């Protein structure tokens, strides 16, 4: 089961849209595939991001993977707690383990994301 109220990307990011802002992170499936997260390379606060553009890197013990922006906008805040305790992403991918908060540039882009049931289907098909 994936949280019903979130939207999802094919690259396994989740996003919670809150008015003109959005918070995102990686899904439980993504953290489980990565294994122990050891480092998060954040984008600079204030930088502009484009939907589905690479903006951060999450490293695990043995590999590094890119994180893609679920929506276009500007970075407002990054989750500083992950600097010392990146394993929070493994423990709480949808809550404590959020990665960035952004201002949303174009609310219409939400159409390019999957809802929970579509993401579940996507997981089953790609699994």
């Amino acid at each position, binding site marked *: 089961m994936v949280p019903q109220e979130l939207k999802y990307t094919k690259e396994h990011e989740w996003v919670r849209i809150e008015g003109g802002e959005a918070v995102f992170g990686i899904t439980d499936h993504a953290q489980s595939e990565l294994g122990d997260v050891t*480092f998060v390379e954040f984008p600079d606060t204030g930088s502009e991001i484009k939907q589905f553009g690479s*903006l951060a890197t999450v490293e*695990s013990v043995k590999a590094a993977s890119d994180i893609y922006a679920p929506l276009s906008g500007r970075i407002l805040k990054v989750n500083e707690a992950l600097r010392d305790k990146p*394993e929070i992403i493994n423990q709480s991918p949808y809550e404590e383990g959020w990665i960035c908060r952004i201002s949303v540039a174009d609310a219409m882009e939400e159409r390019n994301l999957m809802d929970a049931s579509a993401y579940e289907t996507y997981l089953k098909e790609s699994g």
Partner: protein
Amino acid sequence: MCEGTHCLKNTPLLEKHLEAGAKMVPFSGWNMPVQYTGIIEEHIHTRSKAGLFDICHMGEFFLKGPSAAKELDRLVTCRIDNLPAGRCRYGFLLNDSGGIIDDLIVFRISPEEFMIVVNAGTVAKDRAWIEEHISPGAVFTDSSGDIAKLDVQGPLSGEIMASLLNGQIIGDLKKYYFVRVNIQGVEILLSRTGYTGERGYELFFPATEAVRVWDILSAFDDVKPVGLGARDTLRMEMGYSLYGNDIDEAHTPFEANLARFVFMEKDFVGKEALLKQQREGIDRVLAGFICEGRRSARSHFAVSVEGRNVGEVTSGAFSPCLKRGMGLCYIEKEFVTEGREITLSPREPVQRPDRRTGIKASVKSIPVYKPRENERSQNGTPGT
């Protein structure tokens, strides 16, 4: 050649791994557990208690006969003539250019019988090389499919083995010694060797008994299964080379900083090339490094000093004990000084303008992490 996962070989312990929740990955043609509960947890468990590793994929050869010792002495870099029965030694098979065909451990079972333990991915080429280079007087057998290998590694491994062997004393079994023991009816060749830097043992026995021995060892509360992921980070903290990553046919033992496992006072295949290299000198050598922070360099990252490319990373990962990046790299010899600052950068083009491309790191003598017990003076078995 076989592609995909459908034709991977399984060890006799596949069911056990799946029961324990393992994530399975292809490795050297085998379907192997990379982790059970998580690499970091398994790594720390091995450093603090005891880890159990399924290493059935590795190869075991036997060489027998009155000329076996002489034949082997000519094929491997370590000294065989003075190796007593009951002891084993780490060394290399070299090609004529001095490149490393494989790293291995030679066990002298009796004056005229040897077991040679080799890497999984190199079994076929090692076998072909050895068969091509031995005289008919020595009888070569590849028993890789018939022998199971389990490793028990960690500070509690001695107590665990002792309690299984009630009466059969192994308490003072020194590093690189081995004995034959009987555990609940299973005849086992038990050696004090390993690839983690901790006190540890490697168990060789008939593959048909693999599940039984796995269950016997798993029954200890302090024993947890450990996958190839933690096996890799454990060996990397010790600076042990992994065949195919840090050592290969393009590098000699001198370049790999492993000259101590080469006995130059005898004749062996590849020696001429090593003598030539001794005369001419070498450009790049294998060295350890640690990163400034948690961000870790990976295999094939470029090594640079003041903007100039001076080497390449061959192993890189996050160190669970040091909580920072670590690894091994080939680097121009002049930069191999403790604490020398280096920059490690991915080779692929940078995709984001704000991306920090280089990782700050420094050259560090191996082992980059020192286990509590002093088990680090020698290399372990060949990799995985």
